[in-house]
């Protein structure tokens, strides 16, 4: 029986090739979209979960109230780890480590900038990276040792055995390779290329040795003996700052490592979600796309019920039970699902590289993972059953006698069910169109919002090695200007596209002494205003040529507003205990998030070689590539030991929009797929209608209706469906997108445009789809349909 049913199912597929193609294609696209989204969700979901004891591992966060807001950071003092290890009950290991930062590593002539983490041996006990070579108990103890990841070892040494060979750090320290470990997985929060002992860090930066509870400079990881001990440990953590340093108002807390990536947003010192919200959207999207693909399948299958009805009748008359018919139809749907899955696989494998490129991640299908196969298999069975349920139950319910007598099957109920299904599909599609349009508008709005300085042709060069010497820096500036590659050059104390140094240690007249207000502080070089392409609102710019200017500062507009200064020029400000005078007000410009208001900033002239980047305004009259070549040459001439690390400011600025861009791109693509699949569903309904109303159409034609009349008549019904779907979608989309927008400080107001777009796009597509199908029927010779009555 099974074999025969299978054979018949295959014959049916082959006989109705066009129909099978629509059916299988729609389902395959749905399945492929769902699979890619699920792979992506799984990738994000498994962040930091690769370690054996990751569930017992916690990251120490500190909450600090400043400017009336609670800031939460995973930055802790260097003495935290020891204190936690000794005093907090239930702690198995605690480790401190630096965040990955680029350092120069050399082997012979091979110079590479590597992401380095300085840490202690406990780090490797908490995170059990797999050792390929070397002993995990012996590493990070010798001050002059280094652990390499596999890929970095290959970069340095090629195929040679790296063990016990030496590398040079920043051309200063000679380190012996003590172990090689597997690369940190792409989906982990701490990604590095080599590990070095903390003692080496202390030797290189002597200030690290000082025990200072006020200096939050490293990451502290804690592993508990048992998760039952969490609440007591967390409670003991809370007052750890206060116990060790009386005036410190910061509060520490433990945040699970497994939630570090996905639940990174804090409000009032409590985790309130983060990327997990986006992930939930994608999960929902995956499910919905699969569902509309299933709905499609149902629509198309039942649309052909006329043709299958006879078979059902005969089968029942010769002794089939309803159950065996249901089984038969389920078998068919599972067969189609199976073919679609195979096709979906091919689609996924083809599109993954493109997708990875688009999102800048590394998704792969792990074929050796049994979980993957189980998930795939259950996805297939689930799809087969959902898609097959309605056709199976509907088709098997035909009464044999009615079918065999040639009576028309009562179709009212099935048509309305199918209409509801199509409306459902279009509600989803319209929602997606609206949301995508609003996301696009918002992204555009924020991107085009003035950021306060001129990004174009602005480049930053990292200050490294010998460039830290202020005379060399001055030399670099002179050479750049002389070469004609740059029109203005200045220095800046942190990356201009990132947040960075801030302080609350600023006093002024009229300040509420109890309030902590956080100021960004930046050291700048000469010609800052001209290089950045920003504006001086009042006063004058700082200059190192003027002797007095070491005692002067500039403020940005936000700072003036926050401080409530009526006469900002000449105001006295106590900055880190020194009395300074404000000489200028700089227009607000964005350094952190483009979605948030600009924070107060204070500028002072750089006289301690605080520069971390050189800002270079390229000469617009000169060809860019030759300018770049000149710059490379000049930088190489001053510091030959480092690869030149330069980037365009607007490129690094783009990175800020990555999350929203990702959301936009994904909803664009999958929204497109959803609309496409929905159209297939509509096509199915049109096919059915055409078959059902063949006779009616023929009679109308005999009575004198034109093809146009008939198309209008038939389209009216579909337009009605799509319009209803849009009306349902509008409030739904409004609620969803409003919620999404409300997380942005700068946001567009929702206009009618996306809604108009949704309704017109869906109606135009629907009419095109339906007309394409119905025009055949409308044009057909009426006699063909009437003759057989």
């Amino acid at each position: 029986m099974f074999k025969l049913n299978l054979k018949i199912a295959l014959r049916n597929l082959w006989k109705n090739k066009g129909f099978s193609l629509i059916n299988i294609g729609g389902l395959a696209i749905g399945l492929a979209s769902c699979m890619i989204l699920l792979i992506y969700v799984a990738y994000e979901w498994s962040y930091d979960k690769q370690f054996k004891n990751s569930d017992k591992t916690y990251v120490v966060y500190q909450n600090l109230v400043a400017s009336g807001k609670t800031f939460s950071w995973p930055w802790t003092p260097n003495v935290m780890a020891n204190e936690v290890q000794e005093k907090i009950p239930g702690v198995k290991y605690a480790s401190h480590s630096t965040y990955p930062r680029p350092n120069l590593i050399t082997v012979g002539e091979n110079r590479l900038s590597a992401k380095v983490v300085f840490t202690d041996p406990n780090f490797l006990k908490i995170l059990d990276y797999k050792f390929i070579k070397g002993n995990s108990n012996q590493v990070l103890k010798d001050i002059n040792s280094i652990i390499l990841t596999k890929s970095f070892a290959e970069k340095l040494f090629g195929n040679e055995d790296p063990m016990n060979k030496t590398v040079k750090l920043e051309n200063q320290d000679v380190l012996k390779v003590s172990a090689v470990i597997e690369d940190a997985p792409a989906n982990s929060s701490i990604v590095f290329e080599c590990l070095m002992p903390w003692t080496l860090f202390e030797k290189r930066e002597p200030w690290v040795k000082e025990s200072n509870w006020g200096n939050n400079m490293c990451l502290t990881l804690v592993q508990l003996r048992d998760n039952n001990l969490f609440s007591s440990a967390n409670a003991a953590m809370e007052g750890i700052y206060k116990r060790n340093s009386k005036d410190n108002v910061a509060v520490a807390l433990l945040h699970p490592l497994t939630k570090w990536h996905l639940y990174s947003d804090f409000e009032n010192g409590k985790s309130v979600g983060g990327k997990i919200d986006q992930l939930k959207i994608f999960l929902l999207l995956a499910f919905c796309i699969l569902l509309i693909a299933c709905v499609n399948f149902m629509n198309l299958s039942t649309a052909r019920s006329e043709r299958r009805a006879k078979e059902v009748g005969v089968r029942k008359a010769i002794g089939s039970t309803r159950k065996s018919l249901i089984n038969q139809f389920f078998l068919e749907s599972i067969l189609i699902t199976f073919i679609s899955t195979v096709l979906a696989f091919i689609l996924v494998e083809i599109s993954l590289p493109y997708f990875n490129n688009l999102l800048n991640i590394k998704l792969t299908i792990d074929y050796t993972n049994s979980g993957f196969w189980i998930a795939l298999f259950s996805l297939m069975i689930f799809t087969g059953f959902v898609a097959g349920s309605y056709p199976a139950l509907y088709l098997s319910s035909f009464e044999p006698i009615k079918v065999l007598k040639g009576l028309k099957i009562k179709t009212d109920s099935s048509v309305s069910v199918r209409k509801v299904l199509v409306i459902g599909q279009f509600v989803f599609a319209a929602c997606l169109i609206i949301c995508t349009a609003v996301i696009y508008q918002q992204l555009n709005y924020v991107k085009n919002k003035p950021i306060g300085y001129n990004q174009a042709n602005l480049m930053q060069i990292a200050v490294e090695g010998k460039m830290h010497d202020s005379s060399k820096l001055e030399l670099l500036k002179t050479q750049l200007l002389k070469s004609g590659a740059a029109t203005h050059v200045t220095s800046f104390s942190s990356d201009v596209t990132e947040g960075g140094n801030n302080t609350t240690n600023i006093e002024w007249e009229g300040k509420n002494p109890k309030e902590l207000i956080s100021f960004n502080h930046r050291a700048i070089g000469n010609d800052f205003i001209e290089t950045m392409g920003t504006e001086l609102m009042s006063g004058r710019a700082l200059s190192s040529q003027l002797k007095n200017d070491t005692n002067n500062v500039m403020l940005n507009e936000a700072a003036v507003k926050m401080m409530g200064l009526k006469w900002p020029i000449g105001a006295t400000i106590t900055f880190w205990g020194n009395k300074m005078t404000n000489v200028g007000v700089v227009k607000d410009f964005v350094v952190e998030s483009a979605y948030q208001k600009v924070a107060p900033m204070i500028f002072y002239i750089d006289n301690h070689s605080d520069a971390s980047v050189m800002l270079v305004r390229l000469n617009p009259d000169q060809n860019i590539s030759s300018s770049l070549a000149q710059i490379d040459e000049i930088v190489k001439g001053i510091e030959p030991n480092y690869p030149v690390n330069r980037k365009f400011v607007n490129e690094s600025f783009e990175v800020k929009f990555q999350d929203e861009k990702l959301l936009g791109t994904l909803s664009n693509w999958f929204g497109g797929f959803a609309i496409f699949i929905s159209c297939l569903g509509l096509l199915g309904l049109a096919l059915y209608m055409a078959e059902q109303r063949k006779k009616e159409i023929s009679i109308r034609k005999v009575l004198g209706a034109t093809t146009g009349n008939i198309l209008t008549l038939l389209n009216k019904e579909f337009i009605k469906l799509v319009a209803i779907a849009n009306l349902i979608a509008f409030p739904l989309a409004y609620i969803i997108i409003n919620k999404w927008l409300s997380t942005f400080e700068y946001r567009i107001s929702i206009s009618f445009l996306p809604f108009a777009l949704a309704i017109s796009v869906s109606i135009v597509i629907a009419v095109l789809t339906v007309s394409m199908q119905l025009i055949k029927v409308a044009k057909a010779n009426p006699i063909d349909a009437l003759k057989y009555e």
Partner: protein
Amino acid sequence: MIELKNIEKYYANKGVKSYILRHVTTSIKQGEFISIMGPSGAGKSTLLNILGMLEEPTYGEYHFMGEDVTAMNERKRIELYRNHIGFVFQAYHLIDEMTVAENIEAPLLYKKIPGAERKSRIADVLDRFNMVAKKDLFPNQLSGGQQQLVGIARALVAQPSIILADEPTGNLQSAQAEQIMDLFKKLNEEEGITILQVTHSEKNAQYGNRILTIEDGVIKEDVSVNN
């Protein structure tokens, strides 16, 4: 074999009952060849469908081999007609997606007959109907008469005790019709299969040994035929 007592069938529409069958009482014995005749709309087909358990009477009693059919549940009823009743339709009603052999095999599958026996029975039937060469063809590759032969073969292969045929020759040319009727007669006489056919043709009715005439839902005549 079959006892009908006061069978009625009507459709109620806005309180008005439109009768299809009224007070049909008759009995059919094993081995009879009965033709049901009457004008269009008289209720012939409905009676046949009720006998074949494809339709339920609104009222009345129907005993099939001593069992009360009207009181049976669906599973039992399907079991019963699977084993005892074979249908032959005017429009043949073969399954288009199946080959001749597969069409014949289908009822055996539902009866859960083991593979080896299925094969031998199909071979036997094909042989008897001279259709061995056509066993892998699809219905649309056959003539009407041949399709009806397949239809009869499909009804026979399950070895039913009664064959219900609704105008089996209605779509056929007279030569082919004659062939089918001869076949029925042979089956009835040689194998003792009870046959009940609905027909319009006086000539075809003469092949049987009893004629029931129905008019407006009522049995008007019940006569034996001597041939």
